[in-house]
């Protein structure tokens, strides 16, 4: 599951290479969303710091 952003980024770069800008940006946006969801799933411990 954590490899999904990398494969989406690779797909986005392939779209850049063949000149499909909108598809590339769409895939990039999707990968960033997946990345942030994965971050949310992993950032579960409470930080032991005072802010």
């Amino acid at each position, binding site marked *: *599951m*954590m*490899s999904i*952003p*990398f*494969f989406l*980024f*690779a797909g*986005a*770069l*392939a779209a*850049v*290479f063949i*000149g499909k*800008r909108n598809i*590339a*940006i769409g895939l*990039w946006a999707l*990968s*960033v969303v997946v*990345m*942030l969801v*994965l*971050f949310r*799933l*992993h*950032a579960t*411990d409470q*930080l*032991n*710091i005072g802010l």
Partner: protein
Amino acid sequence: MTQILAMRLNALGLLAISIVLLFAFSDQLIYGDLPCPLCILQRAGLIAAGFGLALNMRFGPRPSHYGLMIIGALAAGIVARRQVLLHIVPGTGSYGDMFFGLHFYTWMVIVSTLIILGTAGMLLFDRQFADDHEERPLAGWMLASFALFGFLALANGVSTVLECAGGLCPDNPTGYLLLQ
């Protein structure tokens, strides 16, 4: 700054990001320092930032491409800052090797900040946006820079599949799940 100079600088930036990714990869492959889940997400954020450079190289510089770079660098920086805060209290441990006295996640805070600073610097030069936005096929060393970056994105995906299989990665990985 002309459009072509901006594109060359973008290609150099992409090469610099690829070198950071290569460094992390070599540490993983040579010294067996497996990336933790947050480390993997920081690599993904770095690739998200580099994507804006790749767009500039292929379609010409645009403010929107630089915007994507800033978003990617912010994402990488947020994950790195979380990891720094996890270990910032002395005695709470650390993860991975050090480089020049700092852990990799601390370096990522610095690198992501430098990317944002560099992007802001590039945005100061308006003339690069004045030229026609013609698509330019990649060639020569710029194509090599693009290909290396694409290869590293794909290689990180394969490495993550080997390390974590199909699910979430363990917090403290001890081996490649698919190779055990």
